[in-house]
């Protein structure tokens, strides 16, 4: 175990003292308050909008609508195909494309006056018929016209149909909403024609790019600060209309504008995990060998933008099966565009796949893990490549032991503890390991401290702590001597935080830059008179001193090296990329969630008596923060499994539970006993540290684990998430 493998979060002090500054908390002289007023219909046109009362309300500085907006010049330009911003151009015209679409921006001198003025705005509409129900709009389903949207076939198309044992099932997941605790928020201001944003973004560089596009300014002119992010889970992957609105308002008033969405607007305006219907077809021999697997998904998108995610992807490679077909279709609905939510696609897909695998195991009268082992994929059949590393079997074993799998009965409804029915279930998760080109600057200060700079941000997983740990390890410094500067533009360019790729991308860049820094320091030292004549290979750098490995008396302190070269500090910046070698391998993280549920069949109450989450994520850089992320991913999956669903009143095309009292997420009392296990074996291929990514796979597989355990306890198969109590009591005999 290395010295840094269990360090505390480096931003912990700031977070527990309230001194961590989130976007809307920056002090900006002369800041004024803004909010967005949303449409009260789901589709149509604005016939008229009465802003007069609002304009005359005390303290109001501006009311901006499509009628008086100075449209950003980029609105006229053709959009990039891959736009980091949203297609919806706020205040562009009178059209209403979804319920609560912003139709006015109200700015006032105080928060209270702004809120009140906003309540005075009234609009009349020309309503058009809206469509918000996926089940009723299936006739509009279509393929996305990109490579990723293509159907996939391996072997015989829909080969499962020829199998000895066939399972055909359908699963749905409802719309789920990210709902980070911090509301979407921004302080926008302008320095001449340079936009400055303090905003909740998962990608500083992406936000710069999209803002530059909208306002038609050079990317370098856009300044973005996202130093602390109060969670995002994917909703910060886009630049959203509210951010553009704040910039429009700030430009008009030439003052900093603070705009914080209401919690209600977090459900309607910043994306969500899309409602998805999935059909599974599984075919197997009686001995439990999968011979065919078909996975079809139909997911919602908005009327103005195609959105897709990797819902069916996992089915192509996770099991050893020679006949695989996958299809993905979208249906445009009158809502805001979805956005990737933690474990995007895979979380949705694994619910269908891992539920179906469980159902098939019962059909075959096999233990669900034994069934999976019989179909263990020794290589990635989709890409026809070897795995870089795969310790999924170790995850199964560790989980079975910890959860007490041996106590499980394959026949449902047999186990009881008091009046509770007991059930065990598991679900497998996976997520690809990606690595984006990343620049990191590593700088030694004269006092021996190491500064690491990158524009990447940290929405909670512990990116800064990971950078500290890797920097400290490579350089051989105590972690207290590492200073991280991140989360803002102007620093070496880092990736968007998402797709579980941050440690692989940024960690590698830190690793590479620190190694480069070491070698450059030694190179410089070798030219110094004190070390003259000693080959570079004989020199080493420890505790602020460069010395000869053979003769420690021949040395120079780093401080005097700097002063003799008339330097104040010494820095390198390096762009780090994945090695070509990596392309020969299929690199994935794997996880398995195990749960023991207690079910009261009369009340439909499901208790998660024990949750064990096991993962093969390659090297674990920091046990503490990784465990935290795994605990949290599991809790996210518990929300998905048991309670989260955005309910729409389709008569009005509007969400009806868009608040934290009615849209339930897990609370402390929902979590009883939770454990985490990491295989912690270095991946030889993925990156210099051998990590594979954790954030997404921490959630993937949890929801089916619960559904499978509930079946094991009750004999009731719930194929439509979430598993609320009404779905349990319906058919259980009372």
């Amino acid at each position: 175990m290395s010295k840094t493998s269990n360090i505390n979060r480096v931003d912990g002090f700031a977070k527990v003292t309230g001194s961590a500054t989130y976007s809307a908390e920056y002090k900006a002289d002369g800041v004024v308050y803004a909010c967005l007023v949303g449409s009260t219909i789901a589709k149509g046109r604005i016939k008229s909008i009465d802003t007069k009362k609002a304009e005359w309300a005390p303290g109001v500085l501006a009311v901006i609508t499509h009628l008086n907006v100075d449209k950003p010049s980029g609105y006229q330009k053709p959009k990039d195909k891959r736009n980091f911003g949203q297609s919806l151009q706020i205040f562009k015209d009178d059209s209403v494309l979804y319920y609560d679409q912003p139709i006015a921006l109200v700015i006032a001198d105080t928060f209270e006056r702004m809120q009140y003025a906003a309540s005075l705005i009234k609009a009349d509409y020309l309503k058009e018929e809206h469509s918000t129900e996926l089940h009723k709009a299936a006739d509009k389903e279509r393929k996305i016209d990109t490579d990723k949207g293509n159907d996939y076939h391996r072997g015989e198309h829909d080969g499962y149909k020829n199998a000895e044992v066939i399972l055909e099932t359908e699963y749905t997941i409802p719309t789920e909403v990210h709902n980070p605790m911090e509301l979407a928020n921004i302080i926008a201001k302008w320095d001449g024609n340079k936009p400055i944003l303090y905003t909740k973004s998962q990608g500083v560089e992406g936000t710069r790019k999209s803002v530059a596009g909208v306002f038609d300014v050079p990317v370098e002119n856009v300044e973005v600060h996202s130093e602390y992010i109060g969670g995002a889970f994917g909703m910060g992957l886009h630049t959203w209309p509210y951010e553009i609105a704040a910039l429009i308002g700030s430009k008009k008033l030439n003052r900093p504008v603070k705009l914080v969405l209401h919690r209600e607007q977090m459900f309607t305006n910043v994306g969500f995990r899309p409602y998805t219907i999935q059909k599974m077809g599984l075919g197997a021999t009686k001995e439990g060998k999968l011979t065919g697997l078909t996975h079809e998904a139909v997911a919602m998108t908005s009327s103005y933008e195609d959105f897709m995610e990797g819902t069916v992807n996992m089915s192509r490679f996770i099991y050893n099966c020679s006949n695989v077909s996958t299809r993905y279709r979208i249906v445009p609905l009158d809502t805001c565009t979805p956005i990737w939510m933690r474990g995007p696609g895979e979380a949705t897909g694994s619910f269908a796949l891992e539920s179906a695998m469980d159902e098939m195991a019962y059909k075959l009268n096999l233990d669900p893990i034994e069934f999976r082992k019989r179909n263990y994929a020794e290589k990635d059949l989709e890409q026809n490549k070897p795995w870089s590393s795969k310790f999924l079997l170790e995850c199964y074993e560790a989980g079975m032991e910890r959860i007490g799998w041996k106590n499980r009965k394959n026949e449902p409804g047999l186990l009881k503890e008091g009046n509770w029915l007991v059930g065990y279930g598991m679900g497998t998760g996976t997520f690809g390991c990606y690595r984006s080109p990343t620049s990191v600057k590593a700088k030694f200060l004269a006092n021996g401290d190491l500064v690491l700079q990158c524009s990447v941000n940290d929405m909670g997983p512990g990116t800064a702590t990971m950078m500290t740990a890797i920097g400290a390890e490579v350089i051989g410094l105590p972690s207290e001597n590492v200073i991280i500067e991140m989360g803002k533009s102007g620093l070496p360019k880092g990736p968007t935080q998402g797709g579980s790729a941050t440690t692989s991308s940024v960690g590698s860049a830190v690793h590479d830059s620190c190694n480069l820094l070491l070698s450059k320091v030694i190179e410089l030292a070798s030219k110094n008179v004190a070390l003259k004549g000693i080959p570079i290979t004989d020199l080493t750098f420890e505790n602020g001193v460069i010395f000869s490995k053979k003769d420690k008396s021949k040395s120079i302190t780093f401080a005097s090296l700097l002063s003799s070269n008339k330097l104040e500090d010494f820095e390198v910046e390096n762009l780090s990329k994945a090695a070509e070698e990596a392309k020969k391998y299929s690199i994935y993280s794997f996880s398995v969630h195990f749960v023991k549920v207690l079910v009261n069949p009369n009340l439909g109450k499901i208790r998660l008596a024990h949750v064990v989450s096991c993962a093969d994520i390659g090297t674990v850089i920091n046990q503490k923060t990784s465990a935290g992320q795994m605990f949290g991913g599991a809790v996210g999956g518990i929300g998905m499994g048991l309670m989260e669903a955005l309910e729409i009143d389709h008569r009005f095309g509007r969400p009806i539970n868009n608040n934290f009292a009615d849209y339930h997420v897990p609370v402390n009392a929902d979590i009883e006993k939770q454990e985490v296990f990491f295989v912690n074996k270095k991946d030889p291929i993925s990156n210099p540290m051998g990590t594979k990514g954790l954030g997404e796979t921490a959630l993937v597989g949890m929801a089916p684990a619960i559904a499978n355990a509930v079946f094991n306890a009750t004999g009731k198969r719930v194929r439509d998430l979430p598993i609320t109590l009404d779905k349990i009591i319906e058919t259980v005999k009372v």
Partner: protein
Amino acid sequence: MKNFQIIKALSASSAVTGKAKDNSSMFIAGGTNLVDLMKKNVVAPDKLVDINGLDLKKIEFLKGKVSIGALAKNSQVAEDSSIKEKHPLLALALAAGASQQIRHMATVGGNMLQRTRCSYFYNTDMPCNKRVPKSGCGAIGGSNRMSAIFGASDSCIAVHPSDMCVALAALDATVLVEGPKGKRQINFTDFHRLPGNTPEKDNTLDSRELITSVEIPDHNFTKNVHYLKVRDRTSYAFALVSVAVALDLKNNVIENARLAMGGVAHKPWRLTETEEFLKGKTVSEELFRQAANLSMKGARGYGENDFKLTLGANAITEALTIAASK
């Protein structure tokens, strides 16, 4: 939120007078519901009369009854050792409501006056007869998972969200109020009302009256009591169905029973017929099942909340069983 004037009342009578002067003024105590509603523009008073300075916070054990001041905090009552001992059902119900922070703020009087959690009531761009008379009921034919199964009308199927009130209804409490015309008492079960054609009225309190205290007569329900709250997560959620049970058992025979449900009607739903049915009978699984079925007589679902018909019966059986086994 609209701005408003705020005045601090120094006595109950001055509070009543202060409020009576202005039709659109309201009393404010804990504010946990009122401030929320004001933020949502569901209510928009011109003036608030802050009654927190009034001497109405005491819990007093008098001869034959306990008097709980209207301004006693929910947590204060829930954790009062004498309340726990003599009125455990009330303590259990209170502890099941909201979160500890809210229980520290919310008062007994305010808890009684909290408005429904029906989404259509809360969202001002939706129809709701309770918020805007004659605008229609959004929940009928809409999202009604939380809605009533008893005593609803074509105008309104909202439920009263309180847990505390379910226990108070079961315990035969009395509400003491003071208004411009003086003081009066209201039986707790008559305090809240059914929606009928006037769902805008939650209760029988005159808009100028102030709740001063709640009294619970002494009783023998100190052991075999249970408050069962069924909800969508383990804590910090409103009840889908709740059941308050109090049994007076002697050698497994029910001498006396009290039973009320929450989350099922526009008011705490007292089940007096079931109480009578249980009286004098010996505890058994079959008896409780019969009691549950009897209790659900007249219940109807509105679609999404049909499950409450089964759940309600099961919850009654479960609550009775737990209470009897204590």
